[in-house]
Structures are given as structure tokens and as C-alpha cells.
């Protein structure tokens, strides 16, 4: 989950998010170094006692400060394009789940074998137990098997919503009448949080997404239990 003073992205829980995270840190390091360097030059120039008389014909430094930025840009562009194409790889999912946005909750449907559907409402702040996260917990989590390619089809039953889980590197708009596909693999077991990412009315901030990745046998037990309860 997100934390108050975090500097970077949340810990990755999927291979694609790992790539995005490393790229983000790589690009951020480059721009931080450039900004620090430029700041240093500005401060040096502003506080210098001498003035530079020679403002013409500096062929060498002109070449350096043209070629070096071009090289830096290539070093940013190449990993960026690699990730861009990685995101569009063809997937072979093991499981399809539908995430339907409503005002103001999500509902999940697992219909590959039986018809399993349930709603997922935020746990109100006064009902939280110690250790739970305010505005992030939900009464029913979307449980998935770990290390399995999952296809999530996102849609909405009323207005625009958006289904996002940052640690899985996933965000997809929920549009009424449209079925948007997003795929991912949870590389480790855990509980991953997200929040609705498209303004959808009064309780837009209070319809979180909770994904729980568990070993396959646990997932099968959970889905049998859910079907019995339904």
C-alpha cells in the first residue's frame, strides 16, 4: 500500500511492475543528477567574482553539451520503448475475472466454471479492526492464484470508474457498455491495494480495490467456500 513519506513507487508485485519501477528509478536518477549539476553551475556562475570575457568560439564544450544529452536521451528511450512493447505482449491467461464498477463499490465475477459473483464494499472507518488500513480495506477481496496469468475484464454498470492496483502495475478505465482487458501475473503472495481512479460521484474515494494472491489450493478452497455461501 502507499505510505505517507514514500519517495518512490510501491514495491512491485508483478514482473511488469518491476520493470516499470526500475525504469522510473533509472529516469529519476538521471534527472536528479542533471538538476543537481545545473543547480551547481548556476550557483557557481552567480557567486563568481570574475566575469567571463570569452563568450565566443567554444567548440569543444559545445560539442560535449550537445552529444552528451543526446546519449542520455537514448539511454532513457531504449528501456522505455522496451517496456512499452513488453506491455503489449500477447497473454495466455489461466483465469478470467470481471471487475464491474458501481456507485460506489466493485463487484467481481468468476464465471470460467461456475457463476460466482460478489460485491466488494469498503470497510467503514468505525468498523476497522486494529492493523487494518483506513479507506483501503474491503469486506470481500478479489482472490487470485499466485504466479498465474490473470485476465481482468473491467467494466461499469453506471458511470465511469477506473480499476487500479499500483503494486501490480495495473490501471484500466471502467466504461459502461465496454469491456476493457488487462492482464498481469502476481509474482508473490500478498494483499495489494488500489483505489478507484476515475471521478464517479460522492464516494469516489471510498470504493477501494483489494487483491489477495494466494497459492492455487487456497484459491480453489476459497472459491468453493464462496460458491457455497452464495
Amino acid at each position: 500500500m502507499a505510505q505517507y513519506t514514500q519517495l518512490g513507487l510501491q514495491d512491485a508485485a508483478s514482473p511488469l511492475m518491476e520493470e516499470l519501477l526500475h525504469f522510473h528509478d533509472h529516469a529519476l536518477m538521471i534527472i536528479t543528477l542533471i538538476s543537481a549539476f545545473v543547480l551547481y553551475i548556476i550557483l557557481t556562475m552567480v557567486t563568481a567574482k570574475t566575469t567571463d570575457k570569452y563568450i565566443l568560439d567554444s567548440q569543444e564544450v559545445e560539442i560535449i553539451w550537445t552529444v552528451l544529452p543526446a546519449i542520455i536521451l537514448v539511454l532513457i528511450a531504449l528501456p522505455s520503448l522496451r517496456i512499452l512493447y513488453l506491455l503489449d505482449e500477447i497473454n495466455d491467461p489461466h483465469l478470467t475475472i470481471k471487475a464491474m464498477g458501481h456507485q460506489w463499490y466493485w463487484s467481481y465475477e468468476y464465471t470460467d466454471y461456475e457463476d460466482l459473483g460478489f460485491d466488494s464494499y469498503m470497510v467503514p472507518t468505525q468498523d476497522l479492526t486494529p492493523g487494518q488500513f483506513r479507506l483501503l480495506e474491503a469486506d470481500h477481496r478479489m482472490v487470485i492464484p499466485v504466479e498465474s496469468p490473470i485476465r481482468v475484464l473491467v467494466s461499469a454498470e453506471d458511470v465511469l470508474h477506473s480499476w487500479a492496483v499500483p503494486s501490480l502495475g495495473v490501471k484500466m478505465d471502467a466504461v459502461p457498455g465496454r469491456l476493457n482487458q488487462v492482464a498481469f501475473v502476481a509474482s508473490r503472495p500478498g494483499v495489494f491495494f488500489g483505489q478507484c481512479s476515475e471521478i464517479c460521484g460522492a464516494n469516489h474515494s471510498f470504493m477501494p480495490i483489494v487483491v489477495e494472491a494466494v497459492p492455487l489450493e487456497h484459491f480453489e478452497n476459497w472459491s468453493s467456500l464462496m460458491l457455497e455461501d452464495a
Partner: protein
Amino acid sequence: MSEAVEEKLKNYRTAPFDARFPNTNQTRNCFQNYLDFHRCNKALSGKDQDTAPCQWYQRVYKSLCPMSWVQKWDDQLEAGNFPGKI
């Protein structure tokens, strides 16, 4: 039912990648399989053949389509005002 179709149905996990719908928008994928299921049923039962191969389309549309959409379309079919051509 042919062996190949039986094999495919037996090993069904979820709707496989369909090259006709390679992009993010899978709306048509869902609708097309729903149409194909009903067209397959109509065609095969019209010729007095076993409609078991049509189960493939049913499994795919059940995987892909939201339950509320399927319910609505089933109600429309029953009422005779389904917008698609079966």
C-alpha cells in the same frame, strides 16, 4: 462431436487469446461468442445434429461477458427483441 472439440472443451481453462480481438476492447469478443453460440444452436438443431460443439462458444461467452449483460440479452431473446441477428 469430433475428438478435437471434445479435447478443447475438456481442457478448457478460460477463454483463450482470440487474434480477431487483439486489443484492449474485448466488448465485441464477448458479444460475438454469444451470437455464435445461439447461431450454432440454431444451425445444428435445424439440421437435427448434436449441438454439443456449440458449448465452446457458451463457455467462452460465459467467461468473458458480465453476468448482467448475459441476463439482459437472454431476457431480450425470450421477449423477441434481441438486437443481434441469430
